[in-house]
């Protein structure tokens, strides 16, 4: 045997070694906490202590309560409406940026413009709606001075409308970015070909652009749906604490030291979101596009 030959690694073990730091990080910071949550969800709790156990009472209570179903329904409602609104706005903005702005410089400049609201925090962007939409707020006083309405509109603030408005405001960019990204990669000659073949604008949009943008739409959808379904603070502030979604259910439990019950709710929410994403991924193979 010759001793000083450099150690040779098979390509297989090389790639294993390269991914192992990521695996380790994900294991410690993602898998372990989730496993812990799943374990705690079977524990028991009294008012001031939690007791390790293996009982199903948290789940029994969760599935046995009509509130749970109503709150989950609410969560889906917010997610669906927000998704539709952000998709419409996000797609339009991305379409404009990708196909109507001719120079790359302007595309980048306008794209950066879209990100400016993100320079401040989520909470500030959300709370700034409150004085705007209030009974004596800017929106109402402007509408009254224009003579559009006589009485202030009550439903502008502390309502489902306000919640969805804030969500759309907060999360539209998550739709714009991936859609814009896929649109930029569409080969322009495809559109020219379609036009040469006699397709009009609507047909090009429907038959060429939308199918090719699907992966971007899907990535945006996953962002928006998971963000909305996991939120609790927007719902609390914008509904004036009058509506609840699953996140608020969890945060209420945590505040009352009911960690096992909060964990059980979290596990159910996690499964629900995973199922939703699973269904979404059946429609489009996003890996093809990444």
């Amino acid at each position, binding site marked *: 045997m010759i001793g000083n030959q450099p150690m040779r690694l098979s390509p297989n073990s090389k790639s294993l070694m390269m991914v192992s730091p990521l695996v380790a990080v994900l294991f410690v910071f993602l898998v372990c906490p989730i496993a812990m949550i799943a374990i705690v969800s079977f524990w028991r709790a009294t008012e001031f202590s939690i007791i390790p156990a293996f009982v199903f009472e948290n789940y029994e209570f969760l599935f046995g309560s009509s509130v749970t179903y109503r709150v989950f329904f609410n969560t889906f409602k917010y997610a669906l409406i927000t998704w539709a609104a952000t998709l419409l706005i996000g797609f339009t903005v991305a379409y404009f940026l990708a196909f109507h702005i001719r120079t790359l410089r302007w595309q980048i400049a306008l794209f950066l413009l879209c990100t400016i609201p993100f320079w401040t925090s989520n909470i500030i962007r959300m709370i700034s709606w*409150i004085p705007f939409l209030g009974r004596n*707020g800017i929106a109402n006083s402007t509408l009254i001075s224009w003579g559009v309405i006589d009485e202030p509109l009550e439903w502008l603030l502390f309502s489902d409308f306000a919640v969805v408005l804030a969500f759309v405001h907060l999360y539209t960019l998550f739709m714009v970015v991936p859609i814009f990204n896929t649109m930029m990669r569409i080969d322009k000659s495809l559109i020219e070909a379609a036009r040469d073949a006699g397709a009009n604008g609507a047909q090009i949009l429907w038959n060429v652009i939308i199918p090719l943008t699907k992966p971007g739409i899907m990535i945006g959808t996953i962002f928006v749906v998971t963000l909305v379904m996991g939120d609790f603070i927007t719902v609390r502030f914008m509904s*004036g*604490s009058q509506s609840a979604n699953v996140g608020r259910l969890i945060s209420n439990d945590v505040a009352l030291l009911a960690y096992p019950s909060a964990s059980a709710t979290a596990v159910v929410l996690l499964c629900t979101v995973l199922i939703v994403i699973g269904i979404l991924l059946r429609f489009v193979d996003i890996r093809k596009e990444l």
Partner: protein
Amino acid sequence: MTKMTRRELLAGGTALAAGSTLGAPMIWAQNIKDVTLRQFGTGVSNLNEVAAKVKEDLGFTLEMTALDSDSVTQRAATQPESFDIADIEYWICKKVWPTGNLQAMDTSKIKNYDKIVGIFRSGKLTPESEIAQGTAPHTVGFVEGQNGTEFVDNESGWMTLIPTIYNADTLGIRPDLIGRPINNWSELLNPEFKGKASILDISSIGIMDMAMVVESMGEYKYPDKGNMTKEEIDMTLGIFTEAKKNGQFRAFWKSFDESVNLMASGEVVIQSMWSPAITAVKSKGIPCVYQPLEEGYRSWGGGIGMSAALTGLERDAAYEYINWYLDGWVGGFLMRQGYYSAVPETSKNYMTEDEWGFWFEGKPAQGDITNPFGDVMETAGAVRDGGSFYDRMGKVACWNAVMDENQYMVRKWNEFIAA
């Protein structure tokens, strides 16, 4: 700096302390400077000014952590190692005491014990007073011994919490937007204020405000508002759920600032509110009244308790701190913000005659009334809403409470919020 360990000091110290309870701490005045006491509690009384004054007067360090009441309960119950002094409310004490994380205090070491207001000892403000419903402080104020876990109904000499701060709460209103007198709790659900009412989204306090409203409406008379049965909880929340569905409420609030904003912006004209929030609205030049109501007040009180882990020099420092707390400086500091102190007569020494007259005796202010931070709270001629100490604390209908059916109530409360 002496090289004595704490244990050696303890041995010598206890011998010295055996005969004398209060004068003795002066002997180790040098060592006490090294002591650090970690206190946590709600923001109401966890003020940096207090810590600074402790350093100045007593020499040792007090570290303050301010948390919301849920986190306070959580910490007191689950992290006994993280604090030396717990500044908690009496209803929290009822919840936390059984964990054994706190130790009772020997009242013979409390110099001003005899001067503490009757509410916290016999439960009676004056000999004729009736004891209000709910978790009245004296019911969870005493245990049978230092490590006792059962509350006793007499002044056993072992106190769970030394009272520090308390007040009587009622509804806040915007007199300019309502334009007529408000005299009853039932007005909160008056359809006249549809979409302009609010209640706080902290279940243990909110349920009490609700009970005051339900009784005032003549719907039901609770045997004990502070300890409802499941049926009573269902009935109470049922009435409010219906009101909520009819659009009675503009919003619910959870933090002090939210209640101030709701009131100041005119979103809400009548709501449950805390005393300093009224002041905050007024300081913006907006009229706001802490309306005394016929049915009386919902009251709350807090006190400081000692961690069970506290021994030796630290415990002596804690006793010294408590004695100092009742000695008047803090009392004056708190009373000039509209709260009450456990030993009002010592606080008087730290207030001007005008301040004492305004805050405690309910007399018209002679000149500007300022709070300890220098802000003008009231001007000459103003009278405190609700009047004197005895008028206000004498009309307490119930205390903040924790019920036997607390968990059931909390679940029902969540349903109410989600409804």
